[in-house]
């Protein structure tokens, strides 16, 4: 392309340094914020004040910060649930269904030990809480195993299968908690039964202990994908299924495995959201909103280039913005959906700026032709 006496060309980049990727992401975030400023201006609000409110509520306010952290843990777990199959080149669009199943699994364990009937359990919480987590992981893994199995045996499209399972499990939860379902709560409001206080998830630094699980999991996955044999097999399959077959890597086991692990992690996200976040401790009436929220895991996974450690700050940012955006909407009397607009624009700019991971723009002065 020619611009005046300059020629502008795109050149492919061979490698992107870590700092470069970080700088590109930060630039993308700044541009997204600048773009959303127009929405604030249109509502006759000074954008600087708008952003100050969003960020101060999300990251410094004593009511806002815990919400941000809980939300971020949830998004980080969903991101990990997306990353594991993505490393094998497979798209997990089913974190929603898997986390519903995880929630059902956890509450099924509690139900089995009689938590719905009476607050005084015969088993100690030290046994029930781990069992609930196992239940959540099993529930998620079971739903995850289906697309994995179908992919491995019949090469079925995993995107379609996971999407359909989202719908199936959504209605399964509705069946369980609404209209006289076995997990229905006493209030008759179409929500699940409330856990007895004894089996609330333990807290740490004033927040749920699941923060340790999420951070530990991110670190563990990072290690798995850089050093371990199974991580190597998954990555190899993801980069080239034909080369993986040549190297003796099973094209049945890998899809099954990554979806089981992905589902298991999403199941934990379900446990976190409904059994560990303070003040909830039940499958809420609006559980579908959290299913929708799980899709941010896809965006975080893509932006972080499937690096679980890089996903931590991104999950925190998204958690904070969903939270602060919703708050500022009420506080400054903005139109409905400012939080969605903000996240939407942010996603688009981040995805657009990924372009600069692969290309650089070169300016060259054109010599005047004689």
């Amino acid at each position, binding site marked *: 392309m020619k611009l005046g006496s300059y020629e502008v060309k795109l050149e492919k980049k061979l490698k992107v340094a870590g700092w470069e990727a970080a700088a590109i992401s930060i630039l993308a975030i700044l541009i997204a914020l600048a773009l959303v400023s127009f929405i604030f201006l249109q509502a006759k609000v000074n954008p600087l004040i708008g952003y100050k409110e969003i960020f101060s509520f999300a990251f410094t306010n004593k009511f806002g910060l815990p919400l941000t952290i809980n939300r971020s843990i949830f998004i980080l777990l969903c991101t990990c649930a997306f990353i594991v199959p993505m490393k094998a080149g497979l798209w997990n669009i089913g974190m929603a269904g898997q986390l519903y199943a995880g929630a059902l699994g956890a509450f099924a364990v509690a139900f089995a030990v009689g938590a719905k009937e009476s607050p005084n359990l015969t088993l100690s919480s030290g046994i029930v809480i781990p069992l609930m987590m196992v239940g959540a992981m099993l529930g998620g893994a079971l739903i995850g195993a289906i697309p994995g199995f179908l992919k491995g045996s019949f090469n079925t499209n995993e995107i379609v299968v996971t999407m359909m399972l989202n719908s199936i499990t959504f209605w399964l939860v509705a069946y369980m908690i609404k209209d006289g379902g076995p997990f229905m709560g006493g209030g008759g409001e179409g929500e699940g039964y409330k856990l007895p206080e004894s089996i609330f998830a333990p807290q740490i630094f004033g927040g749920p202990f699941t923060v340790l699980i999420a951070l530990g999991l991110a670190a563990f996955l990072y290690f798995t994908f850089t050093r371990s044999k199974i991580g190597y097999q998954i990555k190899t399959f993801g980069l080239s299924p034909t080369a993986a077959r*040549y190297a003796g890597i099973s094209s049945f086991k890998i899809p099954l495995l990554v979806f089981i692990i992905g589902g298991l992690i999403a199941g934990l996200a379900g446990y976190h959201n409904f059994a560990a976040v303070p003040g909830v401790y039940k499958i809420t009436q609006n559980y579908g909103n959290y299913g929708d929220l799980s899709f941010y895991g896809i965006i975080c996974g893509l932006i972080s280039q499937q690096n679980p450690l890089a996903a931590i700050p991104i999950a925190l940012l998204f958690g904070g913005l969903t939270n602060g955006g919703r708050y500022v909407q009420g506080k400054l009397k903005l139109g409905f959906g400012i939080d969605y607009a903000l996240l939407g624009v942010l996603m688009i700019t981040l995805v657009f700026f990924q372009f600069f991971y692969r290309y650089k723009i070169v300016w060259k002065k054109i010599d005047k032709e004689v």
Partner: protein
Amino acid sequence: MTNQERKRVDPLPMKETKHGDTVLEARGITKRYPGVVANDHIDFEIKAGEIHAILGENGAGKTTLMKILFGLVQPDEGEIFVFGEKVNFKTPLDAIHLGIGMVHQDRKLIPAHSVLENIILGHPRAGNILDLKTTAEEITGLCDKYGFNLDLKAKVWQLSEGEKQVVEILKALYRGAKILILDEPTSALAPPEIQKLLASIKIMTGDDLALVPFITHKLPIVLTVSNRVTVLRRGKVTGRLQTKDATENSLAMEMVGREVVFRLERVEVDRGKPILQVENLSAINDKGFQALKDISFSVHEGEIFGIAGVSGNGQQVLAEVLAGLRKVLRGKVLLEGIDVTHSSSLDKWLKGMGYIPSERVNVGSISDYSLVDNVLMNYYFDDEFSRWGILDYKKIRKLTEEIISEYGVAVPGPDTAAKSLSGGNLQKVILARVFTRKPRLIIANLPTQGLDVGATEFVQNKLLEAKKEGAGILLISEDLDEVLSLSDRVAPIYEGEFMGIIPVDQASREDIGAMMAGLKHRVAGI
């Protein structure tokens, strides 16, 4: 076509040329890619009625030069003159309008269409209504003139590789090409087809067409057909020769920069016990057709068993079945006496099989991986390289470094990504990775395909070395010379069947060539 019609067709009517006129001239062509100068001030010219071969190893810059001449890539520096006028190609269309035609190595034809339809596809005169009758007559005229024998109504999928090539050539000629660029014109052809093509090429030059074949390694062909040769090495022109002054050795020297041995010393090794036994093996290909029909043979210790055939006759399926990548339909496979008919690929690797796949980039390596990770592909499953599921990267890095130095892989280091390696260097890594495992059975599928002289020589010597060490080697090749010079026994394959199994000292080149084309051998020999 009358002159007037031609004028309407071609935006820039070509000048009449006579024999010996310079039709295309390139001056100081330079093209840089990140980290490499692909073309470094290349000067080159071609005259009407001449065959000017461009010779060079992989990575010498042939492909880049070819793309520049055809307008697919724009040079950073340099000028191109066509029929004496300076040109600036932006797209291949510009080059086509000026009478440059290109025959790609990977055919760009539509298999479901007829020959005629393929030829007129995209032709400026083929508007909305096709005048098939006139065009057919014109194309038949071209065929007669240049000695092509082709059924215009045949569908392209029914054609052999050689015939498809002819279609590509006709397509270019029918568009009025005066300068024809041929990319590795003989690489996929059976020996009889090569002879036919060469004869037609000779006739074409008599008509003052200029031909520029780009060739990597078939030196005898260069010597028989070309008038002049330009040799490239590492992006620079290292030699400009009249073919009559050149010999196979002198060309190879120019290309590689050192002396190349053409006669491989075949070591006689006592044939040991059978390592691979195949009994009545049948298998189907991806399309669901039976591609292997009741094949039986055995490969012994210290033996190279060669399978010669034109591509698509079942040898690929055979290699994949033996490597555990494809299901067996019927029959039996024994590896050192153990039944491995239905074993997985991993199981076979662990039992001493080593497979060198023909698709280096898509199967044999992972472009985005470093060399360390690529070497790991054949080692991650060994207990030696992992503990408690954690890979021992120190050990694998050391192995990679050893491979790089022992096999002379030209790379900056073990962390280099596979995608930045040339074909020859990549093949060295794949080969080294397999050989270092000391496999009992080596399945080498087209091990030298697309490699230059130096790398081919290297690979062939490594195969002979492995044979000396007692491995059984199944060599699959489309290059008859290679099969004959390396193998102890040869089995020509045609449509999924062996046409015979012949000890190489009883095999004549002509017989094997005929068997590759489907004629059963007179002498039954197993």
